[in-house]
């Protein structure tokens, strides 16, 4: 019976192609906007999340905001991470300098730090090595630079052993980092990164002293919140219960905030697209009502020769369902096309979100059923004598 109803539905849909297409158009537009918008938001979310992850989401950043009367020294950093939840600790201090060689010069963001920074930030060395403990102890003038800085200022990437001037002062290049697609690499100039021993940076810049102003701590395992609490206690103790002396910055919180923003965005856009699907559904109901009236006589004939209320209901319901599902199918096809075009034009690689395809199919079925039910029921409950009299 269902197969027969489907055949009849296909026949009815095919017998008035233009009208069927226009009816489906509402669903098509709804599905395309739903699938494309949500896929794009998901794609963007994915790349932002990757960036946040590459920042090292299992680390805590601490800024010492005051507490000058009891400044934090480089030597006491290790005592802060005695709890086994902490892995490594590295001081950080940033300044901006001009990096130059005879080839070119560029503004560079210089981070003064220690050996542990490489692991905390998950940096990868392409050639040479990262800063080592002796470099820090000896206040060595050595620098590790990002690959693009090497290429743009030195002219090529394999520059280990050469020198580079930072604000006019000679530094030996001991390592070149692998380029990562971190968040910072998306904004052009701050892209140029150079790392020198913390002790060396103090000499380079007047504004930086031996008193630690910020540091990063890497955490064993995933429980950043627990680590934050422990670190908080350690620091409270260190700064005599002065809560304002420091601030702890938990990267998983940005990731969470970011994903919550993206979820909200998905929901918002999905909601708007959902409304257009709903409008498409009303279009289906409208046409099915017209169709039921137009085919009153047909319904009368069918009932006279033995169609039950159920079979007429089924026929109209399946027709509405097929209209919305065909529309959905076409919509998904067009969505795929749009995403491919966006990828080519925008030079990105978004993929269609399978879950949203599932949701849009489900929603189309729902819309087809709900908006098909009323016209189908109207057709099914017609009295055969009256329907036969209808002209």
């Amino acid at each position, binding site marked *: 019976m269902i197969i027969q109803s489907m055949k009849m539905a296909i026949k009815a849909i095919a017998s008035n192609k233009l009208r069927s297409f226009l009816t489906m158009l509402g669903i098509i537009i709804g599905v395309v906007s739903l699938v494309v918008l949500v896929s794009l938001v998901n794609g963007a979310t994915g790349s932002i999340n990757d960036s946040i992850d590459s920042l090292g989401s299992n680390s805590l950043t601490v800024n010492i905001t005051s507490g000058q009367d009891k400044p934090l020294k480089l030597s006491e950093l290790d005592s802060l991470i005695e709890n086994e939840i902490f892995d490594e600790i590295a001081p950080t201090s940033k300044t901006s300098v001009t990096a130059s060689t005879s080839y070119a010069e560029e503004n560079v963001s210089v981070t003064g730090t220690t050996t542990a920074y490489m692991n905390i930030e998950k940096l990868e060395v392409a050639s040479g090595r990262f800063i080592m403990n002796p470099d820090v102890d000896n206040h060595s003038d050595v620098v590790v630079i990002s690959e693009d800085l090497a290429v743009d200022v030195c002219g090529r990437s394999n520059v280990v052993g050469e020198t580079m001037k930072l604000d006019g002062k000679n530094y030996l290049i001991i390592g070149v980092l692998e380029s990562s697609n971190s968040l910072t690499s998306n904004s052009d100039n701050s892209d140029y990164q150079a790392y020198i021993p913390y002790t060396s940076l103090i000499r380079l810049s007047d504004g930086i002293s031996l008193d630690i102003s910020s540091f990063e701590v890497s955490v064993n395992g995933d429980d950043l919140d627990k680590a934050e609490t422990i670190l908080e206690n350690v620091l409270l103790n260190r700064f005599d219960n002065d809560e304002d002396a420091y601030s702890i910055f938990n990267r998983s919180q940005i990731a969470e905030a970011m994903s919550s923003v993206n979820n909200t965005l998905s929901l918002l856009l999905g909601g708007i697209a959902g409304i257009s699907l709903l409008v498409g559904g009303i279009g289906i109901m409208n046409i099915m009502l017209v169709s039921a009236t137009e085919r009153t006589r047909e319904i009368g004939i069918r009932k006279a020769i033995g169609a*039950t209320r159920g079979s007429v209901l089924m026929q109209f319901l399946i027709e509405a369902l097929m209209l919305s599902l065909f529309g959905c199918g076409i919509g998904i096809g067009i969505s795929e096309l749009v995403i491919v075009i966006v990828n080519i034009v925008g030079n990105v690689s978004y993929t269609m979100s399978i879950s949203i395809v599932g949701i849009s199919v489900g929603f189309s079925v729902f819309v087809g059923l709900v908006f098909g039910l009323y016209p189908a029921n109207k057709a099914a409950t017609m009295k055969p004598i009256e329907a036969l009299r209808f002209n």
Partner: protein
Amino acid sequence: MIRFENVSKIYQVGDETVKALDDVSLSIEKGEFVSIIGPSGSGKSTLMNIIGCLDVADMGQYFLDGAPIENYSEKELAHIRNKKIGFIFQSFNLIGTMDAAENVELPMIYQRVPAKERKRRVEEALKMVGLYERRHHKPNQLSGGQQQRVAIARAMAGEPSILLADEPTGNLDSNTGKQIMALFRELHEQGHTIVLITHDPEVAAQADRSIAIHDGKIRKEVAA
């Protein structure tokens, strides 16, 4: 086969009650060819609707194949129409979007006859009315007489107990009408039960027996 016992049907038109059928009793046996004749407004359409299980009586009882119809639900009535009644209408009532073969097939689909068997019976029924070669024509590609023959084939294909024809020649010219009546006589000779409703005495006279109805009452029965 068909037995009416004091059947009445009352319509409410405004404040007035109209007795479309007034205490009608009749019976039609298996294999009979009976015509029901009456002018318009005589109640013959109401009678046909009740015989055809499209409507139910308000009073009295209607037995079809020995079973009272009044107690059946709408769904059961649909099944009875499907299995026991073959309708032939004045205006043919073929479905315009379907071709001749599909129209003939339709009652068997509702009977859930398997596809292979349906195909065989469609062929048989269309050959009987001489339209098998036009099986893929839509109703609007067929003449009135041809459409009525397709309608007869459709009624036959469901293998009903009764063929119920409502003014089957009403929309046809007299020549075509004669052909259709010849077809009915042929079907009757094959043993089918036929109830034919008409206002035309000439058509009615071709049946074995004629029941005249007027103002909702049976006036007389004439054996041909």
